Structure formats: structure tokens, C-alpha cells
């Protein structure tokens, strides 16, 4: 037995993973299960049914007034360690999720609409920012002059969290879809650009020398060597950028929309609807995982040589 084994058999890894998730659910359930019975004593004024006649001290009117008595009432309530609205039981949360998924109310679209809307916003933002950032990044990777010119601006933009773009985006663009697109774009752009620049710079110089030596022209060097050589790193960078997109879209959906997982989360906060918040968050994770699986599939298809093992000798 190694002191620090590096890997585990896949079956064991799967079992442990399932155990981890189950552990969290059991903990959740334990926290929200109403183990305790709490006795609450309340004092209530109750009308006795008796009516007395009194004279009003100022006006001298004759008034009929009911007689009240204070009664002590004890009630027993079931309590858990954590109670709603902080956290509901897993069962109730699941039921709420089902309601969110199936019941559409005015101003409250179904979960599917939320998911679709946010995903569309991200994909659109991604397409726009990637189609600017990738060509620009490649050019910056190739030409140090351009890199020197643009790098300081990028260094300024990069640290800005997407949420800090919300005020400007609203002032300039209102609260419509364009504002949301702009926030998502700004959040993704700097990252996409930096990944592309790095991918381009990292192309081994010997590959370029070899291609030149074999007679490749400038154009051939770009399209046949530089691009394919940089592509794997660009693609893996863009995968990270899509994940970044989620932070952006949640920021973008703080205001001016009732559709989107961000809107769902922010609006549910107002009504202390913890279940809806949790369901919204779970949906984000789920979609990110699915998108990642999908992109890896596409990667395997487009760049098969990255997924090979050494053979022969």
C-alpha cells in the first residue's frame, strides 16, 4: 500500500463519489428533519361572550362592550435544527423543483424557460466575444507590436468582475437584452483574448522553423501550422471561458428581466424562496457539466490526435 496512492480503480472512484453526494443529502435531511417537538405557550385574549354596558366617560353615551379574558394556550410544533425559510427538507425542495418545472404563472416562467434563456445569453455572448477575441488574440500572439499596444488595456479590463459592468451597461444600454449581451461579452472577452494570445505564443518555435524550412509561405504557415498548433490550447481556454460566462450571465440577470436562472435566483431571494434559489443554482451546475461533456465530445471529434496513447516503438 502506497502512502499517497495517485489513482484509484474506477469502480472504487465511482462508489466514493456517489457516497460523497449521498453524504451531503443525508446531512441535509438530518438538518431539516423535524426531530424536536417544541412547546410554544401563547397568551391570547379571548372574548368570553359576556357583554357589559358602560357609559362613555366624556360623551356620556351608553356603550355595549364585549368582555375579554387572557387565556394561556400551549401548542406543540415540530422543529428541525434548520427550518424554512433557511432550508427546507430535501423532499420539499424536490417538490418545489417539480412545481418550478411544470407550473407557469404570470411573471414566473417555468424552469425550462429560465435555463434556455440563460444558456442562449451565454452562447450568444460567447459567439460574439470569441469571434472578436480569437482573431485578435492570434494577431497579438504573432505580432509583439500589437501585443505591446493592447496588453495594458487588457490588464486593465481583466480584473473587472462582470458584475461591475452592470451599472455602466444599464446607463448606456438600458435594461434590455443588449445590456445583458454586453455584460456577458465584457466578462468573457478578456479571458478569451488572454487564452488565445498564450496559445499562440506557446506554439513551439521549431514547428515554425520546420514549416518554413519545408517551404511553407506566410499564409500557409498561418493556416496550416500556427492555427492548428494553437488550436488545442485555444479550445481548452474557450471551455474555461464558457464556464466564466455563467458568472457573467447571473450578474447580467440581476435587473431588468424575469427570465433566466439569474433572475430566478435574485427574484426568489426577495420572497425568501430558498428552494427556488437552490434549484436555480443546481441548474447552473448541471448545465455547465452538460456543456463541458458536449464540448469534450466536440473536441474528441475535431482534434482526435489529442486523445491518443503512445503505441509502437
Amino acid at each position, binding site marked *: 500500500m502506497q502512502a499517497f496512492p495517485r489513482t484509484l480503480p474506477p469502480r472504487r472512484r465511482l462508489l466514493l463519489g456517489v457516497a460523497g453526494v449521498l453524504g451531503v443529502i443525508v446531512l441535509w435531511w438530518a438538518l431539516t428533519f423535524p426531530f424536536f417537538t417544541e412547546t410554544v405557550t401563547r397568551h391570547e385574549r379571548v372574548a368570553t361572550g359576556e357583554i357589559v354596558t358602560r357609559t362613555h366617560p366624556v360623551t356620556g353615551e351608553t356603550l355595549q362592550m364585549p368582555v375579554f379574558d387572557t387565556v394561556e394556550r400551549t401548542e406543540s410544533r415540530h422543529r428541525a435544527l434548520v427550518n424554512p425559510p433557511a432550508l427546507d427538507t430535501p423532499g420539499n425542495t424536490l417538490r418545489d423543483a417539480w412545481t418550478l418545472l411544470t407550473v407557469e404563472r404570470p411573471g414566473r416562467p417555468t424552469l425550462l424557460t429560465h435555463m434556455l434563456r440563460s444558456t442562449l445569453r451565454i452562447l450568444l455572448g460567447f459567439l460574439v466575444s470569441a469571434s472578436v477575441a480569437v482573431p485578435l488574440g492570434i494577431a497579438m500572439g504573432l505580432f509583439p507590436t500589437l501585443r505591446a499596444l493592447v496588453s495594458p488595456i487588457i490588464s486593465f479590463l481583466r480584473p473587472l468582475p462582470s458584475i461591475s459592468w452592470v451599472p455602466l451597461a444599464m446607463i448606456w444600454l438600458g435594461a434590455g437584452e443588449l445590456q445583458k449581451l454586453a455584460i456577458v461579452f465584457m466578462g468573457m472577452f478578456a479571458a478569451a483574448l488572454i487564452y488565445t494570445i498564450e496559445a499562440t505564443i506557446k506554439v513551439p518555435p521549431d*514547428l515554425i522553423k*520546420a514549416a518554413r*524550412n519545408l517551404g511553407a*509561405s506566410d499564409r500557409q504557415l498561418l493556416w496550416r501550422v500556427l492555427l492548428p*498548433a494553437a488550436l488545442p490550447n485555444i479550445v481548452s481556454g474557450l471551455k474555461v471561458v464558457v464556464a466564466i460566462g455563467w458568472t457573467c450571465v447571473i450578474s447580467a440577470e440581476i435587473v431588468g428581466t424575469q427570465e433566466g436562472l439569474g433572475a430566478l435566483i435574485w427574484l426568489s431571494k426577495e420572497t425568501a424562496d430558498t428552494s427556488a434559489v437552490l434549484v436555480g443554482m443546481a441548474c447552473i451546475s448541471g448545465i455547465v457539466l452538460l456543456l463541458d461533456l458536449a464540448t469534450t465530445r466536440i473536441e474528441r471529434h475535431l482534434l482526435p490526435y489529442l486523445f491518443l496513447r503512445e*503505441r509502437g516503438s
Partner: protein
Amino acid sequence: MTTVLEARDVTMRFGDVVALDGLSLAVAQGEFVVVVGASGCGKSTLLNLFAGFEAPTRGEVLLHGARIADIEPRCGMVFQNYALFEWLTVAQNIGFGPRMRGRADPQRVADLLRLIGIEDFADHYPAQLSGGMKQRVALARTLANEPEVLLCDEPFAALDAMTRQVLQQELSRIVQHEKRTCVFITHSIDEALLLADRIVVMSARPGRVKQVLDNDLPRPRTADVQLSEYFLDRKRAIWESVQEEVLTSLVRAP
């Protein structure tokens, strides 16, 4: 014998560093010249000049008497780290040069695959190959371009000793078969003796030609040849010549 490639009184300076200082070397048609020298003696710089990757600070580099002014595809380079195109299959890698020059020739690719003994791996990607196989492909890729001169920049340095031995013999065979002119750089004296018609010993920085030896060991240079008294004498002589330079460069490190 006609001179194919020539460096005439070449000086190469990088800032304050003089990499080559008044170096002259002529390579004849069909000759296998091996350049031996301590690390940092400017061996690679010399190859870069021959390939046209760089222009000399002073002096001239000539191919068939004409000055090499730009990157020169007629001087085909084989790199130490193979520099294969990972996204292309073995066959596509080999066919790259002719394809770029609008002269794709599947038959020549097939012939080369056979020549280097990797026809079964034509559709494999470089990631699926061992180091020795990769260097075979890189060699074939360079040969596919029909270079006048084959420039080898320590191509076997990253390989294990046994693979290296096999590839040295293969290179010898291929270069003779294809009647190529070859300039080969190494820091291994054994490799030099095994491959060369002529061995050029370079001095430590600044790089100059210190000594030129004709290597008349009989071919093929089998294990028997490598263990002969004559081989060992030669090795000793070169080592003594190189040793001085290694020591000089060590004192002056880096």
C-alpha cells in the same frame, strides 16, 4: 568534387556574444560532414545559417555558389525535438513539404514510408509514436522535400542509447541510398566516427574550425569496426582535441 554548401569567413554576433568567428567550411557533393564541439560552441548557429534562418553578421553562406539570403528549403533541417505536426498523420507529415509547394506526391510518400520502415504507421498520429519512430518520420519529412543538403541538429540526442545506435545505422544507409549531402551536428564522438566522411572539430566560443579530420573507417561501420584499434585511436585523438574546448567552455560558463 564540387562544393555544394559553403561558409566563407563567417562571423555571427548576438549582441556582445560572438557565436562564430571567421569560420570557413566547404561541404562537397555527397559528403557526410559531422561537426563536433562543446555545448555553446555555435554548432546550431552554423546550421541556422545554412538553413537561412539567420543571416551572418559578416561573411557569406553559399549554396551552389549563390548566397543564401532567405530561408532555404533546399537545405532541409532535422530537429532534435522532431518538430512534427501533431495534428497530421505520419503520411501527412511526410507529405507536408511537397504539398506546401504544390507538388504533392503520394508515391514518394509511400516510398519514404517504406525506406524508413514505418509503412504500417502511415495513418498514425505522432502522439502514438515513440521517440525513435518520430525521428524517423521527421527524417522522411525532410527527405520528401528533396533537399540538396540534409542538415541534422543533434537529431538523436534525445533518444536512448539503443534506439540511437539503430537510427545512426539507418541514417547512414538512407543517406547513402539517396546519395545526399549531409551536415550533422553532435556532441558525441562515437556518433561522429560512425557517420562521418569528414569530422570538423569546433573550438569553444567564439566558434571556429579547430580541426578537420578525414574519417576513412570502412563502411558499414559495424560493431566490429567500432571496437577496432583504429576506431579507438581516432576517438582518442578527437577527444583530446575536444577536451580542451570543453574545459575552456566550462571555465567560462555559461
